[in-house]
């Protein structure tokens, strides 16, 4: 079809799209490119090298980063597991208990944290922990992470559950399954892609978090983002760019997997192939 006959075409928006993409990705690309820069300067190009990556794993700061990475990993995994479990239970309660008082309010309340400025949550968490006399440490980080991961895990899980027709659960109960068997054998497997997707999202959010972690962590405990921040305060070195690039890679992979799972989730249960 001739382009000028295409009514859905609005000329002039393409350059704007390009501008957005450049603004979004230029800094990331600079960091990625300069992580391969064979020069101690962070601005002058001195040829290609992998030595900053080697230094991340063997250099003087390696033990510090290793400990921080392990902390991050342990916290992200535990926080994501707990948050996903809670989010699954919440989604089941919200979407499979019929109409109840305060349903729409609950829905808003679950998702509201996504819109609260993170710094507010951070301060609130800090105040809350000290008010109840919690010693800042691993536990405070973990609890805080679980809490802010819940809405992120909830979204894909609830979206998935909404797409599952009630007919499957009715068929199961018609075939003598109890409520619990119906949940375990029908609802849970059908929700699996959504749950996986929610888990990965929660994992990434926890892994990347800086602000809240920085507020609630105890002295001497570092996660990868706080360790990177600590290093950067003493000047940006190319090995920081290497770490950042690695972290970016992990995030991109996980988000992609999460997205693919979510998409698969949208097509399977409604595909009735009549």
């Amino acid at each position, binding site marked *: 079809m001739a382009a000028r006959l295409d009514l859905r075409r609005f000329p002039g928006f393409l350059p704007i799209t390009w501008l957005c993409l450049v603004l979004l990705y230029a800094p990331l690309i600079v960091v990625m490119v300069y992580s391969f820069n064979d020069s101690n300067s962070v601005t002058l190009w001195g040829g290609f090298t992998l030595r900053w990556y080697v230094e991340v794993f063997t250099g003087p700061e390696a033990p510090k980063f290793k400990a921080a990475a392990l902390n991050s990993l342990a916290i992200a995994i535990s926080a994501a597991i707990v948050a996903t479990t809670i989010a699954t239970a919440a989604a089941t309660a919200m979407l499979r208990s019929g109409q109840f008082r305060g349903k729409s309010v609950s829905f808003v309340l679950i998702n509201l944290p996504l819109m609260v400025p993170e710094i507010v949550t951070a301060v609130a968490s800090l105040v809350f922990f000290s008010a109840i006399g919690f010693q800042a440490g691993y536990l405070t980080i973990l609890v805080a992470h679980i809490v802010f991961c819940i809405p992120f895990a909830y979204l894909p899980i609830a979206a998935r559950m909404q797409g599952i027709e009630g007919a499957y659960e009715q068929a199961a109960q018609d*075939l003598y399954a109890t409520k619990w068997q119906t949940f375990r054998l029908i609802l849970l497997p059908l929700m699996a892609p959504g749950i996986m997707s929610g888990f990965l999202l929660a994992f990434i959010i926890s892994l990347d978090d800086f602000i809240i972690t920085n507020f609630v962590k105890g002295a001497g405990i570092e996660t990868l983002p706080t360790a990177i921040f600590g290093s950067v305060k003493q000047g940006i070195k190319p090995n920081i760019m290497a770490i950042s690039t690695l972290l970016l890679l992990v995030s991109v992979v996980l988000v992609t997997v999460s997205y693919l799972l979510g998409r698969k989730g949208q097509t399977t249960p409604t595909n009735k192939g009549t």
Partner: protein
Amino acid sequence: MANSDRQVAVKFETVSKRYGTFTALKQVSLDIFDNEFFTLLGPSGCGKTTLLRSIAGFEDIQDGAIRLFGEDIAELPPNKRSVNTVFQNYALFPHMDVTENVMFGLRMLGTSEAEARKRAQEVLDLVQLQSFADRMPNQLSGGQQQRVALARALAPNPRVLLLDEPLSALDLKLRQAVRLELQELQKDTGITFIFVTHDQEEALTMSDRIAVINAGEVQQVGNAREIYEEPNNAFVASFIGETNLIKVDVGEPQDGKVAATLPGGVQLNCSAAVGAHAGSGHLSIRPERVNFCPLDKANLTGTVQRVVYLGTDMQVEVAIQSGQTINARVQNTQMAVIPSIGETVGMQLDAAAARVLGA
């Protein structure tokens, strides 16, 4: 019929169901016998699915009681009712293959794995799907999915099988083949089938008995012949097949017989439905029971308005004195004399097929 000594499988006792202010079922009373192919027939939105779902246990009813082989099932959850459903869109579990789908009910009942597998094979044989046992539901055609849904519901050997328009997704050829299969299956298994459809032809060809439902009320219950030839009211007469409803003066009904005075003054002695009463009323007669005849032998006369070609038949529309239009059918054979438009014709209404309806 000796209906009184047959065991009642499902009994509705003045059941009412309301959604908010809307009444979906109004005082429904119904006896469905054991080992019967029973059909719920009615237009879209009349409450067929609601009726079925209340047997399965997915709808609460507000008034009355539903009894399953004598037992009041109000307090039983769906998984405690020995009733299985073939859902309108099949609802096959998408993450299980055909065999696992069919075995599901047996597993939930605690049948041993080996026995469940054997039974699954049996019912898959029954619906001729042996070779599809390892397929996933989305790898099956609509007709195959329908059979899996049937096999899955039959596997636990329920006492009552509920089928909610299971044929509506199939094309005409397949639908006709499956009708016969379903009927045979019902006779072979001896399970009570309660079948929902809004297709009157489907209902007439398959059922032992039919309940015609409109707007949440049972209009009439009977076998195919009774429903078609002895309709109780105007709704049943015009929903099942085509009919002419002629305004007549009705005499006092006696022993199911009544004298009806046609427009033009001729009296016809015909059958009277329950609820027919003296005064003005409606006489129902099927188009194929209106015959053309010489004017001197006619009990009704009129002017031909239109002649419509229907293939095997011609439909002739005749305006009578009262202004009403009567449809008549003439078989499309070589000998047939087809009246032409504008012609004044005489018609003979077959008194044996004419019926004065109740209100």
